[in-house]
């Protein structure tokens, strides 16, 4: 039974008090004494040759302290891709340098080619306008198919192609999959686009560089989801600042969704400028800069085939995908469309043959990288859309078709045909819960009611499985990762009994400050409010890998668990000493250490005090202090899964889609704080519905971002969304981490897009329209066009 405020308790998020009262302290709230301000000159053409950049006039403007161009960074390193992908022929991927500032060429609208530092932001902006850049506009490649077909217009001339890699997964299964599809009695084919998304975190990026000439220490205060990773990239690859001379601090951060995982050139620039000027240098992104230069998400063009028996038994999935990586390789851009996508292409199913081919393509657009879900939404969308189409072609109910092919509870651990080993799950139980919670028995009646009101009603079903808890270092190392993906925690029990927990995960909306103490409090039997989380500052926390891929609880939470176990072990030694007995005779329950079978006991607080006042310690056996660190490297990915349902009404006159109901049944394994988990799902659903109905990062043929502001980029708003039904009570615990948690951060964004699109297509089909697919966002104009094609 969970202690009040312990594991499983819906404790309110303590950090929200500071956020809601305006007491959060974000990067831009940090203004060290003598701060100067940075503004960037950014390309307004998508592809251009830089002939010259004349900064003389700008440098002479009032208040200007320094002007930088790409030339100033020509000698320093590039910002690398974190994952090496090899093509099918064994060739390593093409990795053109990503410089701090564009040099020689600009490659997308928004590519920064110069920076001005001035006393005030206005002076810096004025001087940017005075920079005279002689840039010849070149033809741009924007569409992936054009980019691949074209060997004249290149994003990076030095690599001679716009193809980054041509990856096959699993290449050894290719022939068998081809043969299976050829021989299959039924094959369903679907071509689809996974639309490009702009992350649009509420807080735009911000970076402040500082330099201490007396010690040679640098400090970067920045909006990062993973300060240690940012430090590593800057130190080891870009600027060569020794890691022990660089502190990266990521304070309160207003959302990331992936876009703040990556190291960006602006961070290197403010550090270099701070050293040169011996003054703090601050850059805060405008919303326009965020649209143009934050790493975007998704942007796949896919053809998927599903081969099956006439009775609906799946035989094979074969996928061909073009994945846009934009103009430069962002840090996770090569793993997202490959190992985070291809390995999920067996879905929840016992299908024996899976083959995935992904071609990554450079284009003159903003870099594309992991965005909430990262590869798994793309996988789930392709699978669940083609399954829906197959159900219609075969005349089988879409729920039944899925159930027929589900992995059954007694089949775990299950080796999927796409190379993963799922440890636990119960997809039928989730589907049962969905049928009940979505009240599917009443659907026909609701359909009739909609029809009376002139609307077309449809039902969309989806089941997903994803891989998170990223990731086992040994496995990802074999697959090309250039980093390990463990995490770390230090539990420091202070003399007066309260506790600081230093964690490698970073909280930028996830609620770690509330959830992590619940784990420790539960294990130690103490008040969670006496436990504080310290995160985001490399000078305070152990080397952890940060927050993304729904990994914080499953990986960093497990490190917290392990470190707390060590604390209990050490405290038991101290308690045994205090109780004058052997450690093996001492039990720890409900916050007290007691000698078995006696009423002799000491409290956790007394032990903590003793640890720091060790007047009578047998110091040859027990060290003073009570502080433990654990690094936790997971044995496998975790595999959250779900069954989602959506009901929509389509207005046949205008094509407008209204979501009437959205039901999310998820299996996240054990849940630490159900309220936070529900909130994470709700946010994910909003983003997934945003992708399905509203959001689109769209470039014109010249590489201009047409949806470059909120006037044209449609974010989901509260009144676009129904009341969600969220249920995560059908849990099968993760079998390989100590908490049994799987991760919940991305599920909503993975499960909802195919559910919504399936519902729209169902509505149109029921209404007598022969529409098989509409690409996202399923806007009114697109629905109307499809109905009237």
């Amino acid at each position: 039974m969970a202690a009040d405020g312990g594991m499983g308790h819906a404790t309110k998020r303590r950090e929200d008090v500071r956020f809601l009262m305006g007491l959060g302290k974000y990067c831009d709230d940090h203004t060290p004494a003598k701060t100067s301000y940075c503004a960037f000159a950014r390309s307004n053409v998508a592809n251009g040759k830089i002939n010259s950049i004349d900064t003389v006039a700008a440098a002479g403007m009032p208040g200007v302290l320094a002007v930088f161009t790409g030339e100033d960074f020509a000698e320093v390193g590039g910002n690398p891709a974190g994952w090496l992908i090899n093509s099918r022929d064994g060739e390593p991927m093409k990795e053109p340098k990503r410089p701090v500032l564009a040099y020689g060429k600009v490659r997308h609208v928004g590519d920064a080619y110069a920076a001005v530092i001035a006393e005030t932001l206005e002076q810096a902006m004025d001087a940017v306008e005075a920079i005279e850049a002689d840039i010849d506009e070149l033809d741009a490649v924007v569409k992936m198919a054009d980019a691949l077909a074209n060997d004249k217009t290149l994003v990076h001339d030095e690599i001679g192609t716009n193809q980054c890699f041509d990856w096959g997964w699993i290449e050894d299964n290719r022939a068998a999959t081809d043969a299976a599809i050829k021989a299959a009695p039924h094959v369903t084919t679907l071509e689809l686009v996974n639309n490009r998304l702009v992350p649009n975190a509420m807080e735009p990026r911000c970076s402040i560089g500082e330099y201490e000439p007396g010690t040679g220490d640098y400090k970067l205060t920045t909006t990062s989801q993973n300060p240690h990773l940012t430090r590593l990239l800057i130190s080891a690859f870009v600027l060569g600042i020794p890691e022990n001379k660089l502190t990266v601090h990521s304070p309160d951060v207003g959302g990331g969704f992936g876009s703040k995982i990556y190291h960006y050139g602006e961070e290197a620039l403010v550090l270099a400028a701070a050293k040169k000027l011996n003054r703090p240098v601050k850059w805060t992104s405008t919303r326009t800069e965020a649209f143009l230069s934050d790493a975007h998400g998704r942007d796949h063009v896919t053809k998927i085939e599903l081969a099956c028996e006439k009775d609906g038994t799946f035989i094979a999935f074969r996928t061909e995908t073009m994945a846009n990586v934009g103009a430069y390789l962002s840090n996770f851009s090569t793993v997202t469309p490959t190992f985070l996508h291809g390995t999920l292409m067996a879905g929840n199913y016992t299908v024996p043959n899976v083959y995935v081919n992904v071609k990554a393509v450079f284009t003159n657009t903003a870099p594309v990288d992991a965005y909430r879900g990262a590869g798994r939404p793309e996988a789930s969308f392709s699978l669940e859309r083609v399954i829906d189409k197959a159900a219609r072609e075969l005349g089988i109910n879409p729920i039944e078709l899925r159930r027929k092919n589900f992995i059954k509870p007694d089949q775990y651990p299950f080796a999927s045909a796409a190379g993963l080993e799922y440890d636990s799950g119960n997809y039928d139980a989730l589907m049962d819960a969905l049928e009940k919670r979505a009240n599917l028995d009443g659907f026909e009646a609701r359909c009739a009611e909609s029809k009376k009101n002139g609307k077309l009603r449809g039902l969309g079903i989806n089941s997903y499985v994803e891989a998170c808890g990223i990731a086992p270092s040994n496995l990802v190392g074999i697959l090309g990762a250039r980093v390990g993906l463990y995490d770390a925690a230090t539990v420091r029990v202070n003399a007066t009994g309260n506790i600081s927990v230093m964690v490698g995960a970073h909280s930028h909306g996830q609620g770690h400050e509330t959830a992590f103490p619940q784990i420790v409090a539960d294990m130690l039997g103490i008040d969670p409010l006496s436990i504080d989380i310290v995160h985001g500052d490399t000078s305070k926390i152990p080397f952890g890998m940060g927050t993304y891929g729904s990994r914080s609880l499953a990986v960093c939470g497990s490190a917290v668990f392990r470190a707390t176990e060590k604390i209990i072990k050490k405290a038991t030694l101290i308690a045994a000493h205090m109780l004058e007995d052997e450690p093996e005779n001492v039990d720890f329950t409900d916050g007290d250490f007691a000698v078995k079978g006696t009423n002799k006991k000491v409290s956790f607080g007394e032990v903590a005090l003793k640890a720091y006042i060790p007047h009578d310690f047998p110091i040859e056996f027990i060290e003073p202090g009570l502080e433990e660190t654990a690094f936790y490297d997971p044995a496998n990915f975790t595999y959250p899964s779900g069954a989602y349902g959506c009901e929509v009404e389509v207005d046949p006159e205008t094509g407008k889609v209204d979501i009437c109901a959205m039901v999310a049944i998820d299996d996240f394994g054990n849940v630490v704080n159900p309220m936070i988990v529900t909130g994470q799902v709700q946010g994910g659903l909003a983003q997934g519905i945003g992708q399905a109905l509203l959001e689109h990062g769209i470039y014109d043929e010249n590489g201009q971002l047409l949806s470059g502001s909120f006037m044209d980029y449609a974010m989901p708003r509260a009144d676009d969304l129904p009341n969600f039904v969220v249920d995560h009570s059908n849990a099968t615990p993760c079998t390989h981490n100590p908490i049994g948690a799987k991760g919940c951060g991305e599920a909503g964004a993975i499960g909802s897009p195919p559910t919504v699109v399936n519902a729209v297509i169902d509505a149109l089909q029921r209404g007598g329209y022969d529409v098989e697919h509409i690409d996202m966002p399923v806007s009114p104009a697109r629905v109307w066009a499809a109905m009237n094609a």
Partner: protein
Amino acid sequence: MYNFEFTKPTTVEDAAKAMSAEGAQALGGGQTLLPTMKQRLAMPEILVSLTDVEGMVGVSKAGTTLTIGGGTTHAQVATDAAASYPGLSALADGIGDPAVRNRGTIGGSLANNDPAACYPAAALASGATITTNKRDILADNYFQGMFETALDETEIVTAVSFPIPEKSNYQKFVQPASRFALVGVFVAKTADGVRVAVTGASNGGVYRWTEAETALNGDFSARAIEDMSGDATDMITDLHGSAEYRAHLVGVLTRRAVVASS
């Protein structure tokens, strides 16, 4: 934003004088102008705030005419015109969000004449008169294309007079991102006949859909225009919808406005 001077006159005469200075520009609610200035897309040298100008705020009814001061906010129109001119009040209540409605003004909206704005449809369909510090301009002569009006550079919209129709309704189909009108149709049935004004759809800005007016003059019902849609020839195509889609919506929304009019 670039630096600028700021002045806040209290009479129309002083405002007009301030407007005659080089680089002067009127500031209403700032809901269009300030974002443009923040992006450095506009650089007025002097902003002439109209907020404190006497007599430019308020809604008053005389006979069958509703007169609204040029500096009146959308929120005030929504409230104060609710009883006298419900079609106009509902339109004002559907502009932007509360912050926009509490700052943005009818004068600013009509001066700006955004091709997707709502008020131009109401003014044109109602046959309103736009009053400036210099003259009265009939709506039929006032709107001259996207962001183009009959105003000269120093002219101030001081009031707008709406003949109150017998029946009216505004149907707005929102552009999903901005929630301006992807297409908006205002239908006004007056003693002199029906007027239908369309916003959001045309490359030429707000316009009257005369074919529908003729049909509705014969029979004020959705049936009378059942198979009609707008003329796609000069309509806007953008990422939110094609010209054909907008032309189709013109028909749908006009029928809905006729049915909903009261």
